[in-house]
């Protein structure tokens, strides 16, 4: 995004609950107008980070600045500039939507002459206009989420912090809330947490991955992909065309001898076809060589496919589930080869 003013600046942020380390030396910067996703497994420290940024919790060590104001020393200035939707979506059940938003607007120091129009405006944006007179306790989860979002936006904050804004919503609602976040993000800095990866790809300019209280990655989806991808993986499926065709093991050795190939596994072998998982160095494309190899040896090339890393793979690789990820990638490769076989 733009290299504009720094909106949120976090340095060496550490939060200890007794002996439990919720956050350890976290640093990051968010520029004005960016939409940043805080990604991490449950209990990674996303919520703690947000609670510190909004002034609800104090940090054990380190500093956090929002719009240039230190969250500890200048809490009131920070609070004026931040809109916050906690994960629990705190609402007063006994109020109707309008009164609730009015209370928040008043507390958020919206000029009293503007309160009514601001409520209308925010309710419109959040798709709540027809719900203004409803008691919050009677509303569905999706609408409660919108009220929570409206509450976070009503004072036109410079920075909006949303803790899992789409959790517990149905797929349509999730898409609506995401669109809403994108819409809001045109003008505001948004930090939101999630463990849903598509969400990050759909909404964010940048991802900060937190694991076990530490930041493990920070960048765009493409950057993270590049960082995680240490090798290329191909699923190659070949079929013997006649009795002179070489056996699976021979083909494996020939594949292994190709330039750039580091390792070859025989995934499945039958009279009709062989499937291999071929790994090569990062950025090496072996598909031309594989084709050549097939024609030279009288084999039919049924498939030669580069495995894609999904966001999940990136996430798991970054958050340290590497062994399981490995097993999964293998599983996926053999599944795709046997699917072809079945077809």
């Amino acid at each position, binding site marked *: 995004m733009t290299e504009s003013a720094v909106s949120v600046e976090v340095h060496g942020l550490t939060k200890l609950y007794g002996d439990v380390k919720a956050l350890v030396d976290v640093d990051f910067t968010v520029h004005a107008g960016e939409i940043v996703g805080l990604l991490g497994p449950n209990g990674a420290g996303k919520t703690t980070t947000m609670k510190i940024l909004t002034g*609800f*919790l104090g940090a054990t060590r380190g500093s956090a600045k929002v719009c240039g104001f230190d969250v500890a020393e200048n809490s009131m200035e920070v*609070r004026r500039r931040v809109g916050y939707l*906690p994960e629990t979506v705190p609402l007063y059940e006994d109020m109707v939507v309008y009164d609730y938003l009015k*209370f*928040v607007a008043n507390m958020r120091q919206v000029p*009293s002459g503007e309160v009514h129009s601001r409520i209308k405006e925010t309710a419109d944006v959040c798709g709540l206009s027809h719900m203004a007179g409803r008691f919050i306790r009677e509303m569905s989860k999706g609408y409660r989420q919108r009220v929570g979002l409206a509450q976070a936006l009503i004072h036109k904050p410079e920075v909006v912090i949303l803790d899992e804004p789409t959790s517990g919503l149905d797929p349509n609602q999730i898409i609506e809330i995401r669109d809403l976040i994108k819409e809001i993000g045109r003008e505001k800095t948004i930090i939101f947490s999630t463990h849903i990866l598509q969400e990050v790809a759909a909404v964010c300019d940048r991802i900060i991955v937190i694991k076990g209280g530490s930041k493990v990655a920070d960048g765009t989806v493409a950057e993270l992909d590049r960082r995680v991808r240490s090798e290329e993986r191909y699923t190659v499926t070949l079929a013997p065309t006649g009795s002179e065709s070489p056996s699976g093991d021979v083909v494996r050795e020939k594949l292994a001898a190709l330039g750039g190939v580091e390792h070859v596994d025989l995934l499945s072998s039958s009279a009709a076809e062989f499937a291999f998982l071929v790994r090569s160095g990062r950025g090496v494309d072996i598909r031309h060589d594989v084709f050549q190899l097939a024609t030279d040896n009288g084999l039919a090339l049924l498939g030669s496919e580069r495995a894609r890393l999904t966001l999940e793979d990136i996430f798991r690789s970054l958050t340290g589930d590497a062994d399981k990820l490995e097993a999964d990638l293998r599983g996926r490769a053999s599944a795709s080869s046997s699917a072809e076989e079945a077809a």
Partner: protein
Amino acid sequence: MNPVWHIYKRELGRYFHSPIAYIVVVLFLLITGGMFWASFFEGFPELSMRRFFGDAPLFLGFFAPAISMGLLAEEKRSGTLELLMTMPVSDLQIVIGKFAAAMTLLAVTLAFTTPYAFSIGTMGDLDWGPVIGGYAGLLLLGGSYVAIGMMASSWTREQIVAILIGFFLCFVLFILDRLFTNSTGLVAQTAEYLSSNYHFQNIARGVIRLSDVLYYVSVIGICLTVTRNALASRRW
């Protein structure tokens, strides 16, 4: 406008919508009223509110924690405390706004008992000094109990725990002087000074002394400070 005012209004609205508040107020009025009139018509009617002011302090010990138990515990349970504490309002403003709302409910409830005094007044020559003193005393005593109940409410997310702690503390303060009737000297004096009822009975005689008022103001001040610190401790 001042955030204290908005918190105050919000809290009054909560009472207005809460069945608990109605039940507690009605129960308080029924019990204190019933006991007062029952004793009034029993034997020779006495033209004073002494009976009422004798019973009321004990029942305030139940009433005040009941109306203050939800002030913070409920906000903690529902997570709305997080909302409040990330708004541009200080912890002390939150505490004061809520305390003022509970005090308003207390004052309104006590106002419903003033017809007792007026009706006795029509029957004969009522000495108004002790009556006014008594009500001032009930407000001070009730204020202390509300502050205690609110402090208890800041320690837990369960209203039921808050009310039980509140009852306990109010009751201990209430009977403190009677626990040490056999003692003499410093112990008895200290117990007497710390007892909420002792100061109340002084005021209910119609003599408003600075030391008695100071006692209640201190209790309120201490409890509200502890409450504020309980909120602020989240940020440590």
